[in-house]
C-alpha cells in the first residue's frame, strides 16, 4: 500500500455526487468523510445534482474517481446519462462507482455501461476506500 501511494504524485481526487431528487445523503457524507480520512481529496457536490452538473464538476476538478450515491430509484435513467456526458467530453480515465439501493438485475446493466463497481447497503467504508484506491492506482500505473 505504502509503496503504491508514494508512486502517485498527488492525492487521489474523488467527486462524491448526489444525482436525483432524493435527500438521502447519509451514505454520501459518510463515504466522503471516510475517503477524506483515508487521505484523498474529496469534492462533495451536495444534493439534487443534474447529470450535467456532475459531469462538469468531475471535469473541472480533474477527478480520478466519481462516487455516485443514488437512492431514488432513478439510477437507470441518471447513471447512463452521466456516463454519456463524460464520454462526449472525452473523459475515459475516471473510475466510476455507484452506491445505493440498486436491485441485482440493474447492477449488471450498470457494469456493462462502464461502472467499475456497485456498492449496495451493508458495504463497509474500508471496502469502498480500498476499491477506489486500488482502482485509481491501477489505472495510473497502466498509463
Amino acid at each position, binding site marked *: 500500500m505504502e509503496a503504491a501511494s508514494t508512486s502517485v504524485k498527488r492525492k487521489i481526487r474523488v467527486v462524491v455526487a448526489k444525482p*436525483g*431528487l*432524493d*435527500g*438521502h*445523503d*447519509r451514505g*454520501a*457524507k*459518510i463515504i*466522503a*468523510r*471516510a475517503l*477524506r480520512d483515508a487521505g484523498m481529496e*474529496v469534492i*462533495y457536490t*451536495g*444534493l*439534487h445534482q*443534474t447529470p450535467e452538473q456532475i459531469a462538469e464538476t468531475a471535469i473541472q476538478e480533474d477527478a480520478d474517481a466519481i462516487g455516485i450515491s443514488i437512492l*431514488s*430509484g*432513478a439510477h*437507470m*435513467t*441518471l447513471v447512463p446519462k452521466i456516463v454519456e456526458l463524460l464520454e462526449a467530453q472525452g473523459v475515459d480515465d475516471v473510475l466510476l462507482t455507484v452506491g445505493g*439501493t440498486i*436491485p*441485482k438485475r440493474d447492477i449488471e446493466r450498470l457494469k456493462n455501461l462502464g461502472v467499475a463497481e456497485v456498492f*449496495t*447497503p*451493508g458495504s*463497509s*467504508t*474500508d471496502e469502498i476506500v480500498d476499491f477506489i484506491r486500488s482502482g485509481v492506482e491501477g489505472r495510473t500505473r497502466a498509463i
Partner: protein
Amino acid sequence: MEPTSTSAAGDAGANAEAEAADTGTPPAAEKNFTTMSGRPVRAKYGPDDLKGDPADKIGEPGQYPFTRGPYESMYRGRNWTMRQFAGFGTVEETNERFHYLLEHGQTGLSTAFDMPTLMGYDSDHARSLGEVGREGVAVDTLDDMEILFGGIPLDKVSTSMTINAPAAMLLAFYVLVGERQGVRPENLAGTILTDFLKDYIAQKEWCFPVEPAMRLVTDMVEYCTDNMPRWHPISISGYHIREAGATASQELAFTLKNGFTYVERAIERGIDVDAFAPRLSFFFNSHIDFFEEIAKYRAARRIWARELKETYGAKKPESMRLRFHTQTAGVSLTAQQPLNNIVRTAIEALAGVLGGTQSLHTNSFDEALALPTEEAVRVALRTQQIIKEETGVTNTVDPLGGSYFVESLTDELEADAYDYFRRIDELGGMVEAVRQNFPQREIGEAAFTFQRELDDKERLIVGVNSHRHEEEEVPLLHIDPALEAKQVERLKKTKEERSQAEVDAALTELKKVAEDGGNMMYPIIEAARARTTEGEMVGALQDVFGTYTETPVF
C-alpha cells in the same frame, strides 16, 4: 427453516447454561455496554435511580405531565391506528393499494408521494425524468388527487400525507376532493407532515428559503385552526432526523425544538396557543434499541407537556398532551437476508406500542431493496395485528412505568434534550442553528461514528457484519418505466382541458398575496380548483421567495 441446525444450537445453549450453574455466576463479559446511541448502561438499576417525586414526574396516564401516556385508558379505549404508508407508480395503482390495505383491516391511510412531487416539480419537468412514481405516487393536479382517493369516503377515513415544502398545495387538493365528495373541510380528518425545519436538517426536500417556509407553515396552521378542526396541520417529525443518522437524544431534542419553534411562530401570529396546540402531532422513529426508544417517547411527552404549560402558557391539557405516529426504522432494515427484517420490525413496533403510540407504520421486509410488494406489506400489517390481538400487551396501560431502568433512561434522555435546547438557544434558536448547520453537523457526526463502529465490529448487525450466509432472493416490486409517460400524458390532458386564463389569474393572485403578507392557503385552494399544477404554484411562490441551496457539511 433449518430445523436440524436450530435444535443443535438450542442444545448447545442448554449445555452452556448448565455449566454456568455448576460454576456459580459467570463473570460479566469485558465490553462496553451501551445503547445504540452510545449511552452507557449499567448492569442493574434500582430504587436509588428513581430521582425526584414519582407522582410529579411519572404521574398517571392521561394526566400532566403525561409521561405514562396521553390517555387514561390507552389501548383499552382506542387502539392505535394501523397506518401503512403507501404510494408508488400511478395514482390508479396506489388507489388499488389503499383499497387492498383497507380490506385487510388497516384503519387509516398514509400517502407516499414521489420525489418530484416532494420537491414541487411536475411530472413533465426536466428534473423529474426517471423519478416519476419511483419512490411514491406522482400527483400533479387535482385530477390526480381525485383518482388517488377514488371510492374512499373522506368523511370515514383519516388520511396522512407525507409532504412538506408543497404541503399547502396537496392539502388544497385534498380539501377540494372532499368538496367534490360533499365533505366539508371541518369533517376531514388526518395529518399532513409540513415540518419544513426537519427538511433543512434531514429529509432535504425543500422548495423555499427558511423564512418564507416558516410563514407558509404558519399560514397552514392558521387556516386549519379556522377551518379544519379535525386536521393536524403539522406532524413534527423526528423520523427523518433519525434515519439520517441521529442518536435517540438528537431525534428527541431536534424534533421537540422544531415543535417549539412552530409554536412560537403561531403565538407571534396572534393565534391562541390553546386553539392550535391540540392539533399539533408528532412522528417518531422506532429504532432497534428497545428500551431506549420507549424512554424516548416517555421523555418526549413529559418535556412537551412541561414546556407548553410553563413556557408557552397553555391552559388546556389537550395542548400539553403529545400524541405521535411511529414508523419502524427503515434504516435498521438490511438488504441481506431480508426475511430477518420481519423480526426487527416486530421488535420496533412493540417498542412503539409500549411507548404509547397513537398510530403505527410497520416497514415491509423487502424495503431495503425496493418499494414493498403486496405480500410484504401484508406481513407488516399482520405484525401489528399480532401485537394487538395475541400478545396481551394492550391489556394494561404503560406496563413499563416504574421500571427502574426505563424511568432512568427517560430521565437521561430528557436531560440530553435540555442540553441540546441550551446549545441551540445559544446559537439564536432553531432557525439560526439550522442556518449554521448545527443539527446537520451533529447528525453527520453520529452517523459517521455509528458506521465506524459497524466497520470495526463494535456493533453487530446480523447478516451484515455477523452471521452472514449465501443470500436468498426475494421477489421485488418493479416500477414500470412506462408509467412516467402515462403520467406526463395525463398532465398534458389536464392542461389542455383547463382554462389557462383562470390559471393565470389564480397564479397572479397567489403571487400578490405572497408579496402582501396575507394567508396564502386561500389563493392556493383557488389555484388548485382551477387545476393549476403543483409545480406552477410552487414556481409562482419561488418567483416571490426564491429557492434554497444547502451548503453541505461532511
